[in-house]
């Protein structure tokens, strides 16, 4: 983490790339005019907002990122079916629980991404993070095995994230 | 077929909206109501998308995008209100 | 459809005016907000209703009347400015007078009057 970053033309290159992509998505076009305009915005907006960003660890291992994204998407699809059946089924069958998951991963952005992933995937919601950021409290809709859940989250999501952020 | 699908979908979403409103009505807690309201925002997006599909226009895409962006802020603000009273402190 | 629309406008108007007639600033603000919804819908209706007729050239076959839409836009913005002002004024009033009654003071013995009238009503 850099405290007080020097002024740079591209304070957040990844961000800029994302913004350019979003711009093109928004306009549904690859027209050169929009490329120019989009690039312009993709450079100026991060410049304008760089002051508003708490510095965060940077991304590494782009392939891991992509793999992670698709894995999560897949999990979301599967999870939704599970949850759908749970909801449609009788309430009696539910087995809700609070689970505390110990965190190894550090820093705000990675933790946020982890917590979000947990929320997005089936049957779990990140309810709270302990003040020292060492524990993630999760509410589970239908708990079968607590330890398995913890292990799954740690291996499936926390590990890749730690790789991506190298922390 | 598409029309039928849209019809079914619209009916489902409309029912969902009623269910949301029902939850807003009965609560019982404020978080319940906020949750229901948030869901209602999402369902409205669905409705708008369906509407867009049905009338094959993209004019309402921005409305959906805006609900996605702003609905979140509204929900978060309501939560913040309950947690801290003061939104901006 | 027109009947439903008009009915909604009527209901919103009723609710808005009823709340505006209450004695607390916040409630009045809520009422004014409802009222502004009614007003905007009403003003919009002066251009008549049309489905699939957004007034964007090339996007629709038949266009709805764009002028009332522009007017409503202006009205929304102005209404927003006014609501913002009156909200803060409500706060200021509470801060200055210690209560949020529109008259700056809570009418005397509301409970006594209330129970009496309720008895009569009951």
């Amino acid at each position: 983490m850099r405290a007080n970053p020097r002024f740079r033309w591209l304070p957040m290159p990844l961000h800029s790339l994302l913004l350019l992509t979003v711009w093109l998505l928004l306009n549904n076009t690859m027209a050169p005019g929009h490329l120019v305009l989009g690039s312009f915005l993709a450079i100026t907006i991060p410049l304008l907002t760089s002051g508003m960003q708490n510095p965060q660890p940077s991304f590494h291992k782009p392939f891991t990122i992509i793999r992670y994204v698709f894995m999560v998407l897949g999990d979301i699809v599967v999870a939704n079916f599970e949850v759908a059946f749970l909801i449609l089924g009788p309430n009696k069958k539910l087995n809700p629980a609070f689970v505390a998951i110990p965190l190894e991963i550090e820093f705000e952005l990675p933790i946020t991404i982890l917590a979000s992933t947990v929320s997005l995937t089936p049957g779990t919601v990140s309810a709270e993070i302990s003040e020292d950021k060492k524990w993630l409290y999760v509410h589970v809709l239908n708990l079968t095995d607590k330890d398995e859940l913890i292990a799954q989250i740690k291996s499936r999501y926390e590990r890749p994230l730690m790789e991506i952020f190298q922390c | 077929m598409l029309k039928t699908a849209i019809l079914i979908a619209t009916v489902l979403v409309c029912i969902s909206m009623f269910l949301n409103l029902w939850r807003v009505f009965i609560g019982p807690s404020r978080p319940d109501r906020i949750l229901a309201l948030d869901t209602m925002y999402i369902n409205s997006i669905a409705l708008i998308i369906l509407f867009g599909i049905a009338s094959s226009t993209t004019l309402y895409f921005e409305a959906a995008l805006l609900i996605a962006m702003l609905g979140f802020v509204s929900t978060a603000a309501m939560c913040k209100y309950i947690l801290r009273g003061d939104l901006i402190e | 459809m027109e009947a439903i629309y008009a009915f909604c406008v009527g209901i919103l108007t009723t609710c808005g005016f009823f709340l505006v007639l209450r004695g607390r600033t916040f409630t009045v603000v809520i009422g004014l907000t409802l009222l502004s919804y009614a007003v905007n819908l009403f003003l919009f209706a002066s251009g008549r209703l049309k489905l699939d007729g957004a007034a964007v050239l090339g996007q629709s076959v038949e266009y709805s009347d764009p002028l009332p839409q522009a007017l409503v836009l202006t009205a929304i913005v102005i209404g927003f400015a006014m609501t913002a002002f009156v909200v803060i004024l409500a706060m200021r009033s509470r801060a200055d007078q210690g209560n949020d009654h529109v008259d700056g003071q809570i009418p005397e013995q509301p409970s006594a009057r209330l129970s009496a009238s309720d008895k009569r009503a009951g």
Partner: protein
Amino acid sequence: MNLLWVVLLPLIGTLVPFFTERFGRNLCALSVAILPACSLILVLLYAGDIFSGQSLRQTIEWIPAIGLDLSFRLDGLSLLFLLLILGIGLLVILYARYYLSSKDSMGQFYAYLILFMSAMVGIVISNNLIQLWMFWELTSISSFLLISFWSNKSDARKGARMALTVTGAGGLALLAGLLMIANIVDSYDLDTVLASGDVIRAHAHYPIALVLVLLGAFTKSAQFPFHFWLPHAMSAPTPVSAYLHSATMVKAGIFLMARFYPALAGTDLWFVLVSITGLITLLLGAYIALFKHDLKGLLAYSTISHLGLITLLLGLNSDLATVAAVFHVINHAIFKASLFMAAGIIDHESGSRDMRKLNGLMKYMPYTATLAIVAALSMAGVPLLNGFLSKEMFFAETLDLSMFGSLSWMIPLLATVGAAFSVAYSLRFIHDVFFNGEPIDLPKTPKEPPRYMKVPVEVLVALCLLVGIFPAYIVGDLLSVASSAVLNGDLPSYSLAVWHGLNIPLFMSILAMVGGITIYHNRRHLFQFQSHFDEQDAKHVFEGVIQWIVKATERVVETFENGSLQRYIFLLLMFTLVMGAYPLFSLTENIGTREQIPVDGVTITGAVLMILSAIATVIWHRRRFLALTFLSVVGLMVSLAFAQFSAPDLALTQLSVEIVTIILLLLALFFLPQNTSKESTNRRLSSDLLVSSLIGCVIGTICFAILTMPLHSISDFFLANSKTGGGGTNVVNVILVDFRGFDTLGEITVLGIAALGIYKLIAKMRIFMPTRDDKGRAWSNDPHPMMFEMVSQSLLPLALLVSAYIFLRGHNLPGGGFIAGLITAVAIIQQYIAHGVQWIKPRVKVDYQWLIAGGILIATLTGIGSWVFEKPFMSTWFDYFDLPWVGEFELASAMIFDLGVYLTVVGAVMLILANLGKLTTSERISIKEND
């Protein structure tokens, strides 16, 4: 010939004392006298013409719209009054020089006096109805100032107010009367009016006009029942009384009657109103005068009585009586002015006006006493003095009356009775003051006044004698020209002689003398009899009535203007209801011919949701957070409705405004009660509900009627010209930034002003900070949840990008500066909510005020830019450019305008919300939870 100067000279003279006051009393008085004297000389120069039977006129156009011209006439009547006004005025100036003490502001006094004099001059030489009225009111005003000259005295203030109120009321009546007369004859010219007596008297409005004019005259001349103000005006300095209350102001009413005599007199109505009023006043004044212990009080009632006499004479509709009236005007002015002056000298030199204390002054001031006695005898109507002559004429006239039929004999009898009382109070004046033993407890030892203070009295008393002995030589011509001016025609034959032989009038005089002496001799019984009646002090009654009126009005105001907003709004809504509903009764059919859109499920869903939520908002309005939640639903549904009915821009705007509003309401709700108990009675609730639902019905009905009606509007123009003329395909946006861009400019100005106003409201706010929520729970200990912080800051660039997108496409597709501005603002607010003010402060160094101003400035300058191209404000410009590689793109001035809109919106919303957030930051107290 320049009659304007006759009034203008004294009017200018009003300013003189302010400049000369500092040069000492003598110079001041002298300088003050110069201009009125010039005016008098001017009048005397014209007098020859008048005596030769002419009357002079001058007209300068002024405000034709109200019929007001500067129009003057100088005829016999004017001449007579001018001589009285200016002549006695000059004497009063001299007298006042000695009367006023060094503590009194002489300049002020003289200014008021001269102002009054000018006003009187103005009245008597007016030849225009409005102008006459104008000066008439000026006399009321200046007399108010004079009466209240010693303003620290409560009596003076009250007396002045009373005089002003009564004469003011009369003035208004007079105005109405004059306007009616003017309408009858279709001219404001006095000549025309006086020449049209027959037309006026024959007109249906004559009685009203007459009554109104007489009200003016009677109030001014202190006629019954309006006489009560005059005695209380005696709290004025004596020169004022001498001038106003004997010679001039009270005579203005008489003048008025005399002036309008040709136009209004001669009818039975005139006779009944004027003569009976005069008679009652004559008797009442004479009777009361006897019982007054105050010297000036006695003189005041005596004045009332004599004015009654003159009025009675004018009311008799007889030419001779009229001559007598005019004659008595002269005589009364002379003797009464001298009497007032004498009374003033007595007051001045002895410190009292109470006749119970003043005794035997003959010994202390023999010279003054002699003068006063002569004047008093004239007042009593003793032969060889002027008072005698006009009284004789009066008696003679009363004998000729037959109007009252078989009761006509009562008039001479009553006249004699009045005269007897007149003799009695004159005797009392003489005997009680100058003889009757030694003075009792006087503040000062009485002595003769300064030499020149006596001069005015001497002059007047000399006139009493001269007129009394040589009437024809001294006033004969004057009386004849004046009388003929009043009669506006030939004079009757009369003779001005001291001795007419032994006739009934003489007998009546003798009877009055004897009667008067008898009354005075037996005055103790009379005083005793009178003491059985509580003396109703008019001042108290008058003040009481005024107080009562004020109290009553206060009650009315309290009842209606009770400070209840709910009541005011209720009234407003009732009014709205009536105005909205009333025309609908003529709406026979509320379904128009327009084809209706078939109902579909989505719409019904939306409608039902909207209606239920709106009703829920109302039902739970006292649980505010809940109400707010329902309000959000309604807002969402409204946005969806706009989307449904082909208004994407509206949907977007409504949505973004909705969210900002909710945030704002939440911010405010923190500082307000969360829940309130039931406050309105069921009755109020039901009446409120009734009114609001009726209005709802009206609005709904109208809405439906309009929706089902075919529309012929100007909108095709916008659709046709949007692209070609405005360069955009989003017609709504082109209307906003181009066709009706001026509205938008106003709209962002409103937003900017609102932000400034809110900032102003916040700046001085001392707010209560709830330390717990409505259920008594402590607040959460996590002010900035980490996840929210992280996500918010990641969303910021994205949101800004979307906002740029919305902004840029606005001209051609739904979007635009306003929505983009709101999105930006919401994104920044989100940062505030997530991170808090402290965090943001060093990171955002934008002055939101500058944003607002800059935004409006940019928008305005875009509009002004078109001036360069000789186009009207806000003429837009656009063109298409083709750059290699980039492709074709459009540049439009409307975009710059929209940028202004964008900046203003961002600035305004941020100025409001960010500063609202700052309210509490420094002083937040955390309550630890104790569980």
